[in-house]
């Protein structure tokens, strides 16, 4: 049995059954949401394992067995096309979401409207899952909007504070505008090439690369840079992520900007506008797009992002805002990896850069999940996220502080933690491609170090009045943090094994030197 559709059906059913389940009581609702998200994690693990084992792209047609229409020779049905990159993202999304839901059981205990909260959380999860498995560009847009609308609502979930409402409204306004650019890009591609299937679109664009396709690509990338939180379109992120409940901040910073941002950029560039395909065409003097330009555009925004994001983190007094700016900075590293992956396509350097970027997506999801859980624990127990009031927390919350030290060291990129391995690959590839890029990347890390040292300095200071009576949170909050700490340590110790066995094959499948993404569809069309 193909389990892929259950990856969407399970959270969708879980979300829409939530109002009915809630009638049976709060405890039942909590058990239900944990079971649903746990089941989704199991399905994602199965999908990932299947693809990893076979090293083949999984294609699933909605409502039929074949994407090709009756009487025509091209795909007309919606397909889901999952490669290792999509499957890895799905596994990461379900894992962090499961922990966030587990964490919410205690963190959100004193809130009302929890049926809506859990419904939106599952909708957010399924939106992200849809993005990473779809092979249809309009279907991608639908899932992107599902994810975005759930995010807007969750940012403004706590409507007793103006911070959440203001951030949610601003996020919604500008987010909708960015979505419009993405939709415009999709409409232009559909108008020009008459198909929405990504792999088929890749073939049609390669056959006839027009000005329209360039404009469409620009709109798509422009809109998705916003969704990634790249500088200078990152300001919504530093408002929205701190304003949301911490469990949601972990999902927003750890997952949403990846699935709806950097993943989507990589999928569109490598899946639809494959640089290899166009350089091949150019070698034969045929009309082709110059994807190097796009690679440099992404590198340009990446450098801005990693310097400004991390630098802004240094001057924050709000702990969650500091973490949010740090997320902006880390997105810079991922974009830098993808940018170098494009300009050095087909080269060893490009492969290292892509591996680093893919690896850093997973690492950052885990690390930032932990850091926002820590921020949540501090807010839950102390009642403030102002760093000036949190001095001396280490004595009262030793586990939380230790977790923070590990999380901070990992995100700065200290060996032997997981953040080091991925950052090292990005530094290495950028140094090999252009040393100036490596210097910029290291400057970003220096800012990151300064920002996190400040928090550490606060935690280790003399006890302030505010923290004198606090204690560690309950187990439902401790366990997700502990799991993430263990994951960070294990991923750090086994970093090169993970890099070789998982990240490198994933990067290769994303890069698709032999056009695997197109070939998977061609099998249905009598080719391949």
């Amino acid at each position, binding site marked *: 049995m193909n389990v892929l559709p259950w990856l969407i059906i399970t959270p969708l059913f879980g979300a829409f059954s939530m109002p009915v389940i809630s009638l049976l009581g709060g405890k039942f609702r909590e058990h239900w949401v944990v079971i649903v998200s746990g089941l989704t994690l199991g399905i994602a693990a199965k999908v990932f394992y299947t693809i990893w084992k076979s090293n083949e792209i999984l294609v699933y047609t909605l409502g039929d067995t074949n994407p090709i229409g009756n009487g025509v020779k091209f795909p007309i049905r919606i397909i889901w096309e999952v490669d290792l990159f999509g499957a890895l993202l799905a596994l990461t999304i379900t894992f962090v979401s499961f922990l966030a839901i587990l964490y919410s059981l205690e963190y959100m205990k004193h809130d009302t409207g929890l049926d809506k909260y859990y419904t939106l959380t599952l909708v957010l999860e399924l939106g992200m899952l849809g993005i990473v498995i779809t092979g249809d560009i309009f279907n991608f847009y639908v899932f992107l909007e599902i994810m975005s609308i759930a995010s807007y609502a969750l940012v403004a979930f706590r409507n007793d504070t103006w911070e959440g409402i203001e951030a949610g409204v601003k996020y919604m306004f500008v987010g909708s505008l960015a979505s419009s650019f993405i939709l415009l890009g999709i409409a232009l591609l559909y108008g020009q090439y008459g198909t929405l299937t990504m792999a088929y679109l890749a073939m049609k664009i390669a056959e006839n690369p027009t000005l329209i396709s360039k404009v469409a690509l620009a709109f798509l990338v422009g809109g998705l840079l916003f969704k990634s939180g790249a500088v200078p379109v990152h300001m919504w992120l530093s408002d929205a992520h701190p304003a949301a409940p911490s469990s949601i901040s972990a999902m927003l910073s750890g997952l949403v900007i990846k699935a709806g941002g950097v993943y989507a950029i990589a999928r569109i560039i490598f899946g639809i506008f494959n640089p290899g395909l166009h350089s091949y065409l150019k070698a034969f003097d045929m009309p082709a797009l110059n994807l190097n330009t*796009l690679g440099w555009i992404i590198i340009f925004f990446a450098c801005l992002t990693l310097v400004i994001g991390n630098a802004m983190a240094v001057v924050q007094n709000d702990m969650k805002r500091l973490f949010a700016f740090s997320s902006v900075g880390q997105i810079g590293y991922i974009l830098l990896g993808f940018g170098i992956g494009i300009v050095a396509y087909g080269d060893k350097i490009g492969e290292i850069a892509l591996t680093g970027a893919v690896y850093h997506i997973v690492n950052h999801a885990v690390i930032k999940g932990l850091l926002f859980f820590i921020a949540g624990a501090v807010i839950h127990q102390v009642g403030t996220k102002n760093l000036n009031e949190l001095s001396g927390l280490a004595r009262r919350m030793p586990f939380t502080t230790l977790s923070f030290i590990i999380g901070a060291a990992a995100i700065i990129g200290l060996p032997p933690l997981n953040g080091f391995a991925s950052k090292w690959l990005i530094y290495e590839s950028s140094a090999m491609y252009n040393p100036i890029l490596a210097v910029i990347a290291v400057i970003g890390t220096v800012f990151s170090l300064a920002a996190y040292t400040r928090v550490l300095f606060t935690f280790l200071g003399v006890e302030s009045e505010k923290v004198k009576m606090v204690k560690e949170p309950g187990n439902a909050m401790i366990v997700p943090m502990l799991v993430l700490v263990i994951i960070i340590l294990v991923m750090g110790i086994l970093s090169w094994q993970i890099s070789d066995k998982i990240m490198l094959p994933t990067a290769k499948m994303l890069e698709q030197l032999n056009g695997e993404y197109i070939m998977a569809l061609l099998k249905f069309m009598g080719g391949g």
Partner: protein
Amino acid sequence: MFGYWDALYFIYAFIIGLLISYLLMKWAEKASVGTRKEGDGSKIYISGEDQDKVIPQFEHLQGYFTGRHVMWGFIRGINKMFLTFRREHTGLLTDYVSYLLITVAIVLGAMVIWG
């Protein structure tokens, strides 16, 4: 496997870093003492901040050289940059929209001209 690093290199770098810090401290001590062995003249102003100054809530660190000295030089040295960055973060929705339009325009312009 690609990508190369060796934990030993980090230990070497750390030891060299410590050595440089020690030499710097000794040099600063010698340079600042002048003709006297005691009093304010003997203080090392690595960062321009007095290491004997009591920082509220950090009394236990009094008399030590802390990370603040490094942070001080780093943050103070590029203070203008931070101010510029902060000034741009207005929190105004109109600015967010402007930046989005500028970003899309940059990508669009570059792609149309060089793409």
